[in-house]
């Protein structure tokens, strides 16, 4: 491929014009899948384009987001965290207060409704740490859909609580033993299931990755985060924030909060990747910071590959960021210089995890702790009349055993 990326494509066009009709964000995105999946993707695309303009669908989605998920989630001025950082005012977008404890449910509700309107009685999902699996199993229970969740056998061992939770929700958890036995392999296996059972099955992809139309439709369902933030910030503070900070694994919570602000060019958009043990060690999950352009899971994007083009294993203390790719729209926003991407390592994230507990009484997910860590750093370099919003994408109850283990305490 040519390496001129999306740079010249984005300059004079609205960033809301993406993806184009072929699902491309500049050179990124697309539909890089086997022929066996093409019909399913085209069908999903057509159905989604119809339903996004369908009043009944939108009404039902709105009602469920309000009455089932508990939206709108608060935008909270974190006064003591602001003092601690010693600079810009820090606001937290409280996605951790959603039903099931993270932003993942916004997308799952939307896609489960899609399945219902498309007349598909079965849904499948992939999961790494189990959060998207739990959210998918939850909406499947809510809509009476059969649900199978693919999960790497390594992850099943590490996340027994979420595995049990999915079973309580009536889902079947299918262990994946191929490859590295983690999230990327679960995604491969879910795609294989979808190829085989597409007649009665909708595949709920959990992030803004995968082949078109997934990056677009997941972004659309998550954009409720940014729309609320814009409204709430205007009401509580007036104007626009100076910066928005969100963690990026696949990148759905970041895309959701960034998207409504794309054309508000005064607002800095900052995505925080997982630097794991440190970018210099190679043991991280930061494809936008350190990766190169390639093709995986149906789209062209920044990836972590070795010199032979094989996908390499990633590392992060936070399972939700432990993914070798990233949503193609993030790759595009990086290359057109609309968003900035930085990385926070395991130790910095753990410190932020403790800090937010101590000064605000809020238990953040380890994923979100990456955003908190960078947000505090950034606020410290800004002035007191400026404001930043950190997307607190999830709550950290699920991470307590991990952090306790690091502290040398075993919790059963």
């Amino acid at each position, binding site marked *: *491929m*040519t390496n001129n990326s999306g740079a010249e494509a984005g300059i004079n066009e609205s960033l809301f014009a993406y993806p184009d009709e*072929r699902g491309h964000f500049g050179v990124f995105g*697309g*539909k*890089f*899948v*086997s*022929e*066996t999946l*093409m*019909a*399913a993707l085209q069908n999903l695309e057509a159905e989604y384009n119809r339903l996004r303009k369908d009043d009944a669908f939108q009404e039902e989605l709105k009602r469920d987001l309000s009455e089932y998920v508990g939206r709108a989630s608060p935008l909270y001025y974190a006064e003591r965290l602001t003092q601690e950082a010693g600079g810009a005012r820090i606001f937290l977008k409280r996605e951790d207060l959603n039903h099931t404890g993270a932003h993942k449910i916004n997308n799952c509700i939307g896609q489960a409704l899609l399945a219902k309107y498309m007349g598909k009685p079965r849904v499948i999902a992939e999961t790494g740490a189990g959060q998207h699996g739990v959210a998918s199993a939850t909406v499947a229970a809510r809509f009476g859909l059969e649900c199978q969740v693919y999960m790497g056998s390594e992850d099943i061992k590490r996340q027994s609580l979420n595995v049990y939770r999915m079973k309580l929700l009536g889902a079947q958890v299918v262990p994946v033993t*191929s*490859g590295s036995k983690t999230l*990327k*392999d679960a995604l*491969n296996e879910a*795609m*294989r299931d979808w*190829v*085989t059972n*597409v007649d009665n099955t909708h595949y709920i992809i959990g992030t803004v990755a995968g082949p078109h139309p997934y990056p677009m439709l997941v972004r659309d369902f998550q954009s409720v985060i940014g729309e609320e933030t814009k409204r709430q910030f205007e009401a509580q503070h007036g104007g626009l924030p100076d910066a928005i900070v969100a963690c990026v694994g696949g990148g759905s919570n970041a895309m959701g909060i960034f998207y409504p602000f794309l054309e508000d060019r005064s607002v800095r958009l900052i995505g925080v990747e997982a630097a794991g043990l440190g970018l210099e060690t190679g043991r991280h999950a930061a494809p936008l910071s350190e990766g*190169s*352009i*390639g*093709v*995986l*899971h*149906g789209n*062209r994007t920044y*990836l972590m*590959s070795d*010199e*032979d*083009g*094989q*996908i*390499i294993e990633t590392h992060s203390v936070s399972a939700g960021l432990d993914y070798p790719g990233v949503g193609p729209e993030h790759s595009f926003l990086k290359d057109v210089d609309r968003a900035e991407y930085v990385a926070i390592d395991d130790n910095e994230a753990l410190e932020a995890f403790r800090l937010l507990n101590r000064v605000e009484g809020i238990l953040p997910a380890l994923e979100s702790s990456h955003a908190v860590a960078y947000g505090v750093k950034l606020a410290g370099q800004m002035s007191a009349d400026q404001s930043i919003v950190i997307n607190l994408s999830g709550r950290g109850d699920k991470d307590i055993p991990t952090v306790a283990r690091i502290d040398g305490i075993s919790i059963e």
Partner: protein
Amino acid sequence: MVQLSKTLSDLASDNKKALVAYIVAGDPTPGTTVPLMHTLVDAGVDVIELGMPFSDPEAEGPVIQLAHERALAHHVSLRDSLAMASEFRQTNQTTPIVLMGYLNPIEFIGYEQFAKEAEAAGINGTIIVNLPPEESGEMDPILEAHGIEPVYLLAPTTTDERAEIVCRASRGFVYYVSLKGTTGASTLDIDDVAEKMSRFRKISTLPIMVGFGVKDGASARAVADVADGAVVGSAIVKLMEQYRDDPDMLQSSVKQFVRELRAAID
């Protein structure tokens, strides 16, 4: 005419059906592959599909996934796969080799460089599983300039409209994936295949090879009756797994199996 098209058109003029065999380069060991390619040809294979190992073979079933893993345990790369083709070409200049795999390792080398190295290694065609014709606008002319024929896939779910796009982009042959699932899944529905063939024949004059689900003489025969040739993959790869510690048995069992297929389709 380039080698792949030539071989297939020669077979057609002789009223013969093509036997296409798929193996993964470096499975179960790097030393296996070149002798195995010769074994395949000796036993009656017309076209070799040489799989390039990839860490994430998205469209494959468990049997072929494991083959990729066995090869990757030996760090067999795209360039190693090309080196094997090159070595095979030292004594066989005629049997077409179609390189089959996934796009990422090719993106890493760059399309132009890849095409150059593949041509030098004696590669005649490509099947890039996750590169549908909609995304191949840049790749196709580069391959053509290097005398390499890109083969694209048809599936049971492919509409007539898409079949036209696929056939227009394909060179050499088109590959009909006869099952909706992944490689190695369930059984072949030959009536369905026959129905699809008659549909596709109206769209294109290219030879159509049918793969996915060919596992013995009877299924190869059934496929050859309705198509221009049969592709056998998982059934051979299973022998790699079964005899991975016994190179002699591996070669002899493949030879026997392929002979059975050849006899069945002739």
